[in-house]
Each structure stands twice: as structure tokens, then as C-alpha cells.
């Protein structure tokens, strides 16, 4: 794909942390234990909405084996009238999410935590805590929560001057939509619904914490950012950051949801009170009830076009569930929905709606799939109505470098068009389609596109040359899916040595400079940038050492193929000095060799994806099966192609689950009805086909290796692509997800 002649970048090397992970030795959050450790458990609200009038912990504290109990009064309060932000998180909501304060806002909301010598005693003690609740009427669904007579969750929230469950509004605007629609020959407007889906990481939240008598806390937990763990725990416990050391365990999946914390501050307070190390592990049921998911949504999208397919106006209205506390990912649908297209008039509005559900957490391209679902389904109807090939319609309206997006930017070197063409030219798109291969079975094909902002931000790296001439690289972001392998490839390339001579580590908060979250598709982009700059500094030092040994000017030394060499005949005749040679002489020639960089990286241009999917619908059983899936995306440069492909394949399959099976179901009492992997149906191996990634590598000019973020865009198109394929198969359109068998059967009967 790429003309650059690289030795390591782009190679499918074995990841540095691989052997530990295939032998069961890698330490994930729940794998740690400490001498003298006790166990923490959380008491959760049995009501979806209730005032907490009082909590009596005396009986629990009296139970033999119980060492500490904490409630909201032990956690630093962030009063409702003053917002304190940590990144995109408002600490007013975070402090009430880790522990209910005035009110329990969802079934499963933590109200107290206990630490005891065994898990059983801790669980027993939770039952002895007496909580006086004043049960309030609850509301679960968006359509009910925005009614005038809905139970109001928070008195302080106002919408249009009145108490409301609408916590926030976001508007992106470009041109004049009314004027735009007036010019249109055709307008299509449709409304859509999606259900909340959980991120579904296989590793439940867990942590071990040790607080010492001198007020220092060590936290061992898995997250998408040890610095976020430190900062948030500090804010919620009042312990200064310098006294908290957050050690990143291996992370067993996060997909955005581990960019916030649940257990760590509770464990810190329990450990502080008890004077013992405390371990806390959530059950799967607690994960479903108390963490994530992403928002369910209600949207309306309207697109107006000329007869020739030129889009003249687009309007979107997106209502997103926030859960019990404000903060749904409005930016996703509001900013991403129309971003692939050059549309002169856009109005995109999002509403953040609270209801009595667990507070939503980020999930891969947060909110973007919801918006793309609506927009890309309307695009399909538009293409059908205008009798234009759906990919041609996209190409006709494609955003290009210089296009102004409704979310405010003028695009730089974007490559949406290339993803559409890659699918149009792919054999999958033109393969003959056997529409009715057997009795009761029909097939169809659908396409959709998607957009994600991508992110850059703060990152740190340290590159050190060991005394024996090998290399350690330390960065500050957890490796969720192979980023160590990419870093090893980059460092090996720059130094011109075998990648096996490089070990890549994730530093804890005391051993590496601040690094922002692993999220937003930023880690490979940002870490490759800081590792490159650090390694270049190291190479500068190596050249200087060689110059000193040769007694020539450092400018007259080059670094190539793992050794310092005289730049040319004029520089003198010297045999090359390898990394090993220079490391051996390090002490006499100026000391240890190593360099670090702490940087706010910039230049993460957005990511686009276009997908085609083939489905089969069993009309007797209502089952939709995905038969073939091809996903094109520009990733700039695939530092390690396997892990780029893996991001695409994994994101697509999560999208398949979202489209066809996954949903949060509530009973009349406001309790989640399907809080297990049995009843919350994520795709299993036999549900899906191979997923073919088409990885385009059009270098991002703002990155040393050309990297563009890759992890999130792949989950944006599948919802609409599959809906459009089901329509192609059945001739019926679905306007709500998931397209699960009961819904498909009902639609076929109707």
C-alpha cells in the first residue's frame, strides 16, 4: 500500500506483552492480592428513584470481621451549584455516581460500601445496613422522561425555564436549513430509536488499594488511564495527587467505559479507615446494573436534495439517554452525523435526557453510531427515491479537504471519498447476489459510512538505553489492544535495531509523565509521536557520543542501521559504533543515555469509514444473519497491521451486536431485566462471519509516521449498513434497533 520502505513499521511483529497473555500470567485488575488484604463490597439501591432519608451502619459495623463502612458522607462533596470539571467529566455527577448522595437515581446505585475479612462477611454486612428510603415515582424511557408530567430527577435542571429532565442542549449550525430545504426537490424525514447497549468488556471492574498510616495510597486497577484514576480518586477522597500512586493493571477491555471510575475511591476510603489493603471486584450483574452502558436514543433526521442527488440541507434532532446524572455523548450524533458530506445548510441539535438508569459511560466513538444510524438510513432512502446508487450518492456529496463541517472545522487532508471508492471497487459490492437462495430465506446488501473526530492530547514517553545496549520504552497509557507492539515497531525502525531488543512498558503515575486517556482513537497517534521525539533525542545523544569518541563534529555523524557512522568521506574513516558499543562506553563518555518527552500532541485528523454488508433473513424465525462484511477505512499508516485490522473487526462485530441483538430491557419496577451475558446477547463466535478490513494508508501529513486514529470509526457505520441490507432483503425498513427476531417477525406479520 505504502511506498515507504520500512523495516519494522508495518510488520506483523509479536507483541511485547504477548507471552504473558497467552500463558495466563498477565496481571489484570482482579488478579492482584496483597498480604493482609480484606474485601470490599457495595450495597446498592433496590429502588430506581428514592430520597435517602438516613443510613444506619451500626449493625453492619458490629458484625465480626467487618473492618470499615463508608457512605456518601465520607466522599468529598461537589455541591450542585458549581461545576468542577476533570476532562469531560463533571465531578458533581462523578461524586454522586460512585455513591448516591441525596437520592438513589437508579436501581443498583451504590449507597454504601463495606470492607470485611471475607467477601461473604462483607456481603452479609451490606444486608445489615439500614437505609431509610422515600420511594419516588421513576421514569426510564426518553419519551416518558421528556413529558410535561414526568417525574423530575433533579430540581436544579431547567429546560426552557421549566424544571425538566432535559439536562443540556447542543446545537451545531451551518447556513440556513429553512432556505436549504426550500430549494430541495425531494425531502426525506424519518425517526429512529435505539436501545442502550453495554460496552461488554469481559473483565469486570476491579481494584486493590493499600492506604498507609502516613496517608499514601497505592491503587492497582485496570482503566483506560492511570492518571485519570489518580486525579478522580484524589478529587473524591481529598488525598493529594502526589500521595496517590495509580498502577495500571492489564486491562481486559474498556471500549470507553473505563475512562471513569467506580470502585477506586470507595476502596481507598475503606482501606484508609481499616488500615488494611482492600480488594473490590464487581460481579457481572453489578457491571450491567451499575456501569455504562451507552445511551439509547430517539432521533429524527431530515435530508433535502436536488433531483441530481446534490444535498442542499440536512437537519437532525437527537435525544440521548444520560442515565440518572447528566452527561450523554451529544457531541457524537450532533457533530458526526452529517460530517462525511459537504452540505451547505445543516442544523443538528442534541438533548441530554436524564432518567432512572445507570449513568452512561463512553462507548467507542461515543454517540456517533446513533447519529450515523439515522443519517445513513435516510441516505439509503434518498438514493432509492432518486434511483442513484447509494455509494454514488455519497461520492456526489463527499466532504473534501476544505469542506466546512457543521461542528465548526474546515477539514484538512481528509479521505472520506477514498473509503467510498474502496468499497465501490471491492468485489463484495459487485458480487452477484442470490436474493432467495432457499425457501424462507432472503438475502440483501447494504452500505453505510461513518465519521469520527479522532483525538490527540497529552502524552509522555521515556526511552532509555540499557547498559548492555538494548532499549526500554515507557509510556503512560494502558495498552487496550496491542499499542505496545506499535511502539516497539516505531522504536525499532528509528533506531535501526531488531524489535526484540526493545521492551515496552506502561508506567505508573509515579514513573512517567502525565498522559491522557487511552480513548478517542488517540493512543497510537500520540504515543508514536512522543516515542518518536524521545527516540530522536536519544539518537542525537548517540551521535554526540560517537563524535566525542572520534573527536569529530557531531554534525559529521549519522545514525543508520543501528550504528553511528561518519557522515561521509570528509568526516573521517571510522568503523561504525553500534548501540552496544556506545552503551558500553556511556559512563566514560558523558553518562547514561536516555530521553523523555512530555507533550500535548496535535494533528489528529478525523477518520472515515465505509462498509458493505451482506445479510440473510430467515423469515420463519425472524433471524438476521450477517453473511459477509467488508469495512474500508483510512488509517493513515498501520504501524502494526494486525492490531489495526483487529480494531476494525472488533468494532464491526460490536456494531453487529448493537444492530441485531443487544439491548437493555427494564421491568415495570424500573429494574434491568437482563443483567447477565445469557440474557444480554452479545455476538458469539458462531453468530458472525470473517470481517474483511480494507485498510487504506494515506499518510496523515501531521504525524511523523502518518498515523490517523483507527479504533472508533469502525463501529459507526454497521448499524445503518445492516439496516439497509435488511431492507434490501425484505423490502421493509426498520426504524428501531435491535432488529431482533421478535421485531423482525412482527414487521413481517404487519
Amino acid at each position, binding site marked *: 500500500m505504502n511506498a515507504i520502505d520500512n523495516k519494522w513499521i508495518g510488520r506483523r511483529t509479536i507483541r511485547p506483552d504477548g507471552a504473558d497473555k497467552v500463558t495466563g500470567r498477565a496481571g489484570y485488575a482482579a488478579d492482584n492480592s496483597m498480604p493482609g488484604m480484606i474485601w470490599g463490597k457495595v450495597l446498592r439501591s433496590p429502588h430506581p428513584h428514592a430520597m435517602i432519608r438516613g443510613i444506619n451502619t451500626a449493625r453492619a459495623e458490629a458484625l465480626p470481621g467487618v473492618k470499615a463502612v463508608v457512605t456518601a458522607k465520607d466522599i468529598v462533596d461537589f455541591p450542585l451549584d458549581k461545576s468542577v470539571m476533570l476532562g469531560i467529566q463533571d465531578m458533581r455527577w462523578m461524586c454522586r455516581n460512585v455513591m448516591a448522595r441525596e437520592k438513589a437515581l437508579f436501581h443498583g446505585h451504590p449507597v454504601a460500601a463495606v470492607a470485611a475479612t471475607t467477601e461473604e462477611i462483607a456481603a452479609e454486612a451490606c444486608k445489615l445496613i439500614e437505609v431509610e428510603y422515600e420511594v419516588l415515582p421513576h421514569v426510564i424511557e426518553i419519551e416518558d422522561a421528556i413529558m410535561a408530567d414526568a417525574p423530575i430527577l433533579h430540581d436544579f435542571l431547567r429546560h426552557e425555564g421549566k424544571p425538566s429532565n432535559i439536562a443540556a442542549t447542543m446545537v451545531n449550525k451551518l447556513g440556513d436549513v429553512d432556505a436549504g430545504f426550500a430549494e430541495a426537490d425531494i425531502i426525506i424525514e424519518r425517526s429512529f430509536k435505539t436501545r442502550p447497549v453495554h460496552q461488554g468488556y469481559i473483565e469486570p471492574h476491579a481494584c486493590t488499594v493499600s492506604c498507609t498510616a502516613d496517608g499514601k495510597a497505592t491503587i492497582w486497577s485496570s482503566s483506560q488511564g492511570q492518571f485519570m484514576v489518580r486525579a478522580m480518586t484524589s478529587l473524591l477522597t481529598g488525598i493529594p495527587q502526589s500521595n496517590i500512586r495509580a498502577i495500571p493493571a492489564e486491562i481486559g477491555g474498556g471500549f470507553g467505559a473505563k475512562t471513569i471510575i467506580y470502585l477506586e475511591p470507595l476502596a481507598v476510603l475503606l482501606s484508609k479507615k481499616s488500615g488494611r489493603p482492600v480488594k473490590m471486584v464487581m460481579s457481572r450483574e453489578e457491571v450491567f446494573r451499575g456501569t455504562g452502558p451507552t445511551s439509547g436514543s430517539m432521533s429524527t433526521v431530515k435530508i433535502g436534495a436536488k433531483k441530481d442527488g446534490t444535498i442542499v440541507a440536512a437537519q437532525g434532532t437527537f435525544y440521548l439517554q444520560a442515565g440518572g446524572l447528566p452527561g450523554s455523548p451529544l457531541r457524537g450524533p450532533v457533530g458526526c452525523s452529517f460530517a462525511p458530506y459537504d452540505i451547505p445548510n445543516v442544523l443538528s441539535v442534541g438533548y441530554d435526557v436524564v432518567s432512572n438508569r445507570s449513568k452512561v459511560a463512553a462507548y467507542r466513538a461515543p454517540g456517533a453510531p446513533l447519529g450515523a444510524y439515522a443519517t445513513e438510513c435516510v441516505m439509503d432512502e434518498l438514493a432509492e427515491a432518486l434511483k442513484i446508487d447509494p455509494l454514488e450518492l455519497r461520492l456526489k456529496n463527499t466532504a473534501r479537504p476544505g469542506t466546512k463541517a457543521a461542528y465548526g472545522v474546515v477539514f484538512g487532508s481528509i479521505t472520506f471519498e477514498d473509503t467510498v471508492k474502496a468499497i465501490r471497487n471491492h468485489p463484495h459490492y459487485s458480487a452477484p447476489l442470490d436474493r432467495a437462495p432457499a425457501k424462507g430465506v432472503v438475502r440483501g446488501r447494504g452500505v453505510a459510512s461513518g465519521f469520527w473526530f479522532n483525538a490527540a492530547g497529552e502524552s509522555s514517553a521515556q526511552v532509555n538505553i540499557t547498559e548492555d545496549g538494548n532499549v526500554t520504552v515507557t509510556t503512560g497509557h494502558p495498552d487496550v*489492544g496491542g499499542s505496545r507492539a506499535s511502539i516497539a515497531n516505531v522504536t525499532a525502525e528509528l533506531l535501526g535495531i531488531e524489535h526484540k531488543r526493545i521492551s515496552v512498558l506502561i508506567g505508573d503515575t509515579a514513573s512517567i509523565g502525565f498522559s491522557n486517556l487511552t480513548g478517542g482513537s488517540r493512543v497510537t497517534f500520540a504515543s508514536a509521536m512522543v516515542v518518536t521525539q524521545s527516540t530522536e533525542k536519544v539518537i542525537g545523544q548517540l551521535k554526540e557520543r560517537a563524535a566525542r569518541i572520534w573527536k569529530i563534529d557531531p554534525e559529521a555523524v549519522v545514525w543508520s542501521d543501528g550504528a553511528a557512522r561518519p557522515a561521509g568521506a570528509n568526516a573521517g574513516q571510522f568503523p561504525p559504533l553500534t548501540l552496544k558499543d556506545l552503551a558500553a562506553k556511556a559512563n566514560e563518555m558523558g553518562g547514561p543515555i536516555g530521553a523523555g518527552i512530555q507533550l500535548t500532541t496535535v494533528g489528529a485528523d478525523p477518520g472515515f469509514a465505509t462498509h458493505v454488508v451482506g445479510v440473510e433473513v430467515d423469515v420463519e424465525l425472524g433471524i438476521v444473519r450477517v453473511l459477509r462484511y467488508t469495512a474500508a477505512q483510512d488509517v493513515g499508516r498501520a504501524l502494526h497491521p494486525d492490531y489495526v485490522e483487529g480494531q476494525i473487526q472488533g468494532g464491526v462485530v*460490536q456494531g453487529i451486536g448493537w444492530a441485531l441483538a443487544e439491548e437493555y430491557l427494564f421491568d415495570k419496577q424500573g429494574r434491568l431485566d437482563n443483567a*447477565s451475558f445469557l440474557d444480554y446477547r452479545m455476538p458469539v463466535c458462531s453468530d458472525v462471519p*470473517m470481517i474483511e478490513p480494507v485498510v487504506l494508508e494515506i499518510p496523515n501529513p501531521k504525524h511523523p509516521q502518518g498515523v490517523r486514529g483507527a479504533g472508533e470509526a469502525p463501529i459507526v457505520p454497521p448499524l445503518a449498513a445492516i439496516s439497509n441490507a435488511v431492507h434490501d432483503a425484505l423490502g421493509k425498513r426498520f426504524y428501531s434497533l435491535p432488529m431482533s427476531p421478535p421485531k423482525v417477525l412482527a414487521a413481517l406479520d404487519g
Partner: protein
Amino acid sequence: MSKLHVTTSINGEPVEFLCEADQSVLDVLRNTLGLTGSKEGCGTGDCGACSITLDGRLVCSCLVLAPEIEGRQITTIEGMAQGDHLHPLQQKFLEMAALQCGICTPGVLVAAKALLERNPDPSETDVRYWLAGNLCRCTGYDKIVRAVLETAADMRGAA
């Protein structure tokens, strides 16, 4: 209630432990014996992260009570490599990047090994249905299935 004394074999080694009557094998492996390679994704038999073999049969260790393994043989992920020699499946998973976060990997490997011992020449469909009890949220299964099929082919070639 006093604890039960259990004598069993884990990865070919004789092992004794004390447990409660209602403790799962997974709990004993992880919290009593320090064998944390088997993971707990659900505790209800739905994710396969805790997969082990019990007298050669693939089971979810979260669903087996610890006293039940008295006098029986179990193998876990910790018993898969021989010394510093990885099992061909482990090696292939590394070469083909069949893991991302790796939390499902021990269970998937134990399950895949059990498959290849029964069926050295599985089809893609065989692999997909056999591994249907092992949830992976990261990979979309593509590289896992390919790695299992390729290991099977290699092992047949070597046999």
C-alpha cells in the same frame, strides 16, 4: 461450618486444598491456589473466560463446585505451555494477533485445545460453534478462528 479437604490433580501436579462446600473451582484456583490465569467474566457459565478441563472435558470452572474435583484431574491455562515451550496454539495466537486485551485468551486457548484434541481437522463452522461459549468483545473472532484453523493445519502437518 468447617472446611472440606480436597485432594486433586492440577496440571499433572497433586494438589490439596481446603474449601467451603459452595465454593467454585474458579474461586479456589484464583483465590486459594493463586492460579489467576483462569478469569472470571461472569461467574454464571456464560463467557467461558474460566474454561478448564476436568478429566479431559471442557467445563466452566465457575460452574463446578470445588469439592467435586476430589480425586479428579484438571488442567488450566497454566498447564498449557511445557516449560518455556509454548503450545502451538499459544504460539499461533501470538503470531496471528488473535488477542487484543487478552482477558478472554486463556479460556479461548483452553477451549481450542480441547477442540483440536477431539477434532484435529475442524471446519470454520466447527471452530465457530465450539468456541461459541467463549465471549470475546475485542477481536470480532476473526483472528481467533483463523489462528485455530491454522494451528490445526500445522499440527496435522507435523503429525
